[in-house]
């Protein structure tokens, strides 16, 4: 049923896209069919892989370089209340500052190659994951910790058995929120200055007045983001299998 509904929505979206293309003119909005053909050609020529792999490398590297400390640092700072309080305004400022504005700086430092995009992505991902993870740590149920201390659990066991499992869903949420941002930020970096990547290919297509090329790039990005999200979702479902889904709760209530 759900699959059917999803296909129905896809058909509706494609129909709307096609209608828009007819209304505004195919020179502005390429029809879905022409886009699909261009997509297929780009795929066969190896262009999509050439550019896509570059964007994906920038996104994944930046995601790891920003995401790992973003998820880890809140755990380190958890019990250092003073340090955390001192750093807080700077972290908030870092989170709020538009990182895209740093792009020229990263290009001066790291050149127009992969490194500047990785740095840009890392700077975005770090703050996102950091704040969501911090919120997760703040939400740990203090009563669980008090109960565990009463029956003799030490700080290490509490960290492993209570703090980490409570915060883990937040860490995953942070990573899932950050994943599309990682791709998007890599593309923005490429749009500004690059000689490879999906952002570059979109920019190049725009310069050539080739809307089909732009649509191909956008569709490719949407597919990459969807794939990445699905992969993180699978990982999360595996690691957080204890969380009740609606079915088990229903079953349990029926049983008692």
């Amino acid at each position, binding site marked *: 049923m759900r699959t059917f509904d999803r296909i129905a929505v896809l058909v509706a979206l494609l129909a709307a896209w096609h209608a828009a293309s007819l209304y505004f003119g195919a020179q502005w909005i390429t029809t879905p069919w022409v886009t699909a053909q261009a997509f297929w050609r780009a795929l066969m020529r190896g262009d999509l892989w050439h550019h896509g792999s570059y964007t994906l490398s920038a996104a994944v590297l930046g995601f790891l370089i920003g995401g790992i400390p973003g998820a880890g640092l809140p755990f380190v700072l958890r019990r250092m209340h003073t340090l955390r309080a001192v750093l807080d305004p700077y972290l908030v400022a870092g989170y709020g500052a538009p990182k895209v504005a740093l792009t020229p700086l990263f290009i001066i430092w790291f050149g127009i190659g992969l490194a500047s995009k990785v740095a840009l992505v890392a700077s975005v991902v770090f703050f996102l994951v950091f704040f969501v993870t911090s919120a997760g740590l703040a939400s740990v*149920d203090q*009563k*669980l910790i*008090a*109960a*565990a*201390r*009463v*029956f*003799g*659990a*030490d700080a290490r*066991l509490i960290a492993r*058995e*209570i703090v980490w*499992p409570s915060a883990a869903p937040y860490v995953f949420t942070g990573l899932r929120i950050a994943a599309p941002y990682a791709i998007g930020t890599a593309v923005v970096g490429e749009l500004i200055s690059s000689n490879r990547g999906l952002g570059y290919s979109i920019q190049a297509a725009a310069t050539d007045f080739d809307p089909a090329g732009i649509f191909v790039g956008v569709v490719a990005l949407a597919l990459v983001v969807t794939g990445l999200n699905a992969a993180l979702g699978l990982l999360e479902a595996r690691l*957080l299998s*204890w*969380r*009740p889904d609606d079915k*088990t*709760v229903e*079953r*349990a209530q029926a049983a*008692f």
Partner: protein
Amino acid sequence: MDMKAHAPFLEVEGLAKRFAAKAGRGESLSVIEDLSLSVSEGEFVTVVGPSGSGKSTLLNMLAQIDRPSAGSVRLRGETILGPQSGPLVPGWNCQIGYVTQEDNLLPWRRLEENILFPLRAQGRLDEAARERVAALVELAGLKGFERFYPSELSGGMRKRASLVRTLSYDPPVILMDEPFGALDAQTRMQLHADLLRMWNVKRKTIVFVTHDIAEAIALGDRVLVLSRAPAKVIAEHRVDIPRPRDIDHLVLAPGFAALFDRIRQALI
């Protein structure tokens, strides 16, 4: 009322808890003032008081989750807590168990792992311990549910599990803070019977806090009555209903109604 039949096991003397004044709240707030009580070994003491009378605060201090503003707590004659003593030792080296209002089971652990958690934390999880716990699990009617997550169990079963978790590591003193408060009347009665059955097997020293007078009489050897805040003990009543008690027909037991009424009057 012969309170000193045995040497006191757990003694509380002059306990007080005050919260400092804050902006917008003129004077400091005194929740407990000059509260003293003593419990002998193996005794089941229930404490009733109006809601907001600092019952949970009292147990939190006995469990050493919270520090008193004044007074001291002694266990077997040894001072384990005073206002000036060192850092708090929650549970006093696993000597004092605490069953709270919420079951505080770890949602990401199965029932069995939850119940064995204290023993694992204390490094005492061996075959003999597992067997003892398995017997307790059966006594509590939880057999067959070991592999379930807490979210898959009813409120009553989670309560039993939290009770068994504390009984499993055998602390000499167990504090209970309205553990059956959130349950329906039927389940509550069942759990009263279960608790008394388990207590009969191994007579722990229990301090059980509640606002329910009938519950206090049904379970306790002795009922302490607390005043409104600042709380202190204003009355104590020995419960002469013989054990083992028949929870289902307790209201018919001689003396129940009179005792209920006396405590009710003291609480008003």
